């Protein structure tokens, strides 16, 4: 067992996968000599050279579109989008092309690639360096969406993503890069896509989240334990395909569900989880399905006073669970 940071988990896994499979290339803005603006690809250029670690022009549609072509012709690209906020110029290539290549060709062509992008707020990045964009993509059949919340999962899920034969969007919460550390075993383990995980067992309320919000939910659960409230916490890990069974099993046990996401509330990813619970576990529900989310303004504002106002926090999660428990 080694202890490493979240970003080191990603960096080391990229290096190991590139050693394992010569078809893997990394491409994106500043991923080469600079090693990425967060240093997630640091060292790869030195080890694998300019052919396999490609500093691209500042053109996201090209980064994804050329990756699609490269994937079709035998490579396994791992493009980086510098910030999830800047994935929008590539929206057409991801949603209209990568996601649909297999279905539209009746399985004649596939598109194995893993698009990595740092996302999330709380880092003083303002409207355009703080976004959560998972809801846009989790809605799209043909894509797989992964958001790890620990170094262990980051390694296991990144391996599974890169080895998957379909396009995966792999979002990394940038606030966790250096603030979250954790144990990782040696060896080539994988965490399969499509499996959620109960990260804390409890009996009264189920809290469901992903990414940084799992960390916050666990902090909230500690606060709640002091109040005598027993909270179960589920880390979704793969947003698509979703492991609904693990969620339903838990909610059938606790009878109460609180969905947490950092993105804008209205139409956010967690709405689907609430809808599934309301459809499939209605008889077991003992209270309304709550959501703790970011507010419905267009992005996290910059000034620290405003940024604090935006972000969901352990306290706000705990407050919601308290009310739900008392319901």
């Amino acid at each position, binding site marked *: 067992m080694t202890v490493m940071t979240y970003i080191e988990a990603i960096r080391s896994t990229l290096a190991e996968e590139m050693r394992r499979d010569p078809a893997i290339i990394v491409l994106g803005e500043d991923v080469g000599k600079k090693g990425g603006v967060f240093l997630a690809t640091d060292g790869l250029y030195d080890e694998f050279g300019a052919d396999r670690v490609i500093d691209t022009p500042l053109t996201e549609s090209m980064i994804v579109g050329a990756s699609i072509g490269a994937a079709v012709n035998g490579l396994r690209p791992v493009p980086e989008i510098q910030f999830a906020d800047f994935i929008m110029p590539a929206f057409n290539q991801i949603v209209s*092309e990568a996601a649909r290549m297999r279905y539209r060709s009746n399985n004649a062509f596939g598109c194995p690639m893993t698009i990595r992008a740092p996302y999330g707020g709380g880092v003083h990045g303002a409207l355009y360096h703080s976004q959560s964009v998972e809801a846009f993509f989790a809605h799209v059949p043909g894509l797989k969406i992964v958001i790890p919340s620990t170094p262990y999962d980051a390694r296991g899920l990144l391996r599974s993503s890169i080895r998957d034969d379909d396009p995966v969007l792999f979002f990394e919460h940038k606030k966790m890069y250096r603030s979250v550390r954790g144990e990782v075993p040696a060896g080539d383990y994988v965490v399969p896509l499509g499996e959620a995980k109960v990260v804390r067992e409890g009996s009264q309320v189920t809290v469901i989240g992903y990414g940084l919000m799992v960390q916050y939910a666990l902090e909230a659960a500690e606060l709640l334990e002091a109040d005598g409230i027993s909270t179960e916490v589920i880390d979704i890990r793969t947003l698509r*395909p979703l492991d609904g069974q693990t969620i339903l099993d838990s909610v059938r046990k606790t009878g109460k569900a609180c969905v947490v996401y950092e993105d804008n509330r209205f139409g956010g990813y967690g709405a689907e989880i609430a809808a599934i619970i309301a459809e499939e576990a209605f008889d077991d529900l003992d209270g309304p399905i709550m959501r703790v989310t970011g507010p419905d303004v267009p992005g996290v504002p910059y000034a620290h006073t405003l940024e604090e106002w935006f972000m969901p926090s352990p306290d706000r999660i705990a407050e919601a669970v308290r009310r739900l428990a008392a319901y």
Partner: protein
Amino acid sequence: MATSTPPALGADLGLTRDDLIEMYRLVVVTRAIDERMWVLNRAGKIPFVISGQGHEGAQVGIAYGLQKGLDWMVPYYRSVASLITFGMTPREIMLAQFARSVDPSSGGRQMPGHYGVADRNILSVSSPVATQILHATGIALAAKLRKTGQVTITYLGEGSSNQGDFHEALNFAGIHHLPVVYVVENNGYAISVPMNLQSAVEDIATRGPAYGMPGVIADGVDVLGCYRIGKEAIDRARRGEGPTLIEAKVTRMTGHSSDDQQSKYRSAEDMAAGKERDPLPRFRQELMDAGVLDAAEDGRISAEVKKVVEDATDWSESQVDPDPATAQRWVYADAPPARMDDPLWLGRRFMGDGGPLTGEGD
């Protein structure tokens, strides 16, 4: 008729008489398939036609220099002549019109015009224009990194070349000297929008130098001229000297598609001038003048083509429709998981199997 012996037509291009006849046959068969589509459309048998009439000369000429079984083609919806030149069969083209289950392009999932055949390195095409230009660029990147020796050719209309993806693709190919050939088929219209409202320059080829690559104009009625320009670009790419932008000046002899009435926005003179630039009679005359083709041979070709088109039509029409039970396959490579985004799982009760209303919990 020609009794003296000047250098044989095409000899300077390395083309034999068989090549010339084959190129001619490719133009003729494509035109015949296209005309059949319109007949089928008017007969109510296929709901939608998008036509390449007027583009065939440029397409056959430019694609004839490719290496089948090695190179890649990334087509667009008017590419039937390119595709047939590169090895797609008339049956395969017709299957897409009828959207039958054995259609290799999409198993009947896509509209006609969205071709693709994996075993012939023809990439599946979508509708949003110009996206494929980036795919071709990525295929060429992989070819270069993997040292496969493959050349990739891709096609789009002049209207589509104004999309951002075109700019980003050519720039990247220019930087890395990728083995790719970009062909803009300029028929003067993007549906109804004429060239002067589509583009700030008259010749899209002007844009080649903006990406560090040659921009070459090919005259779409001159099949052998198109071959020469195409072959040069393909060879240049294969030698590792980088990409070329070819603009083929062609004519759109029909409406944009079977949904379009071009007389609403084109003058009669404009349409007549377009018809004048039909590559088929010109090529036929060129071959006859050079003594490569005579009326008898032309008749044999016509008869053969007629049979091919009949066969392709009848055979395709007789194939079965896709089975709805297969409609949810191939969203992913792995079998649909018994999970939320599988319609049989979550939505089973409204997808027709009448499962229980509530979950196991009750």
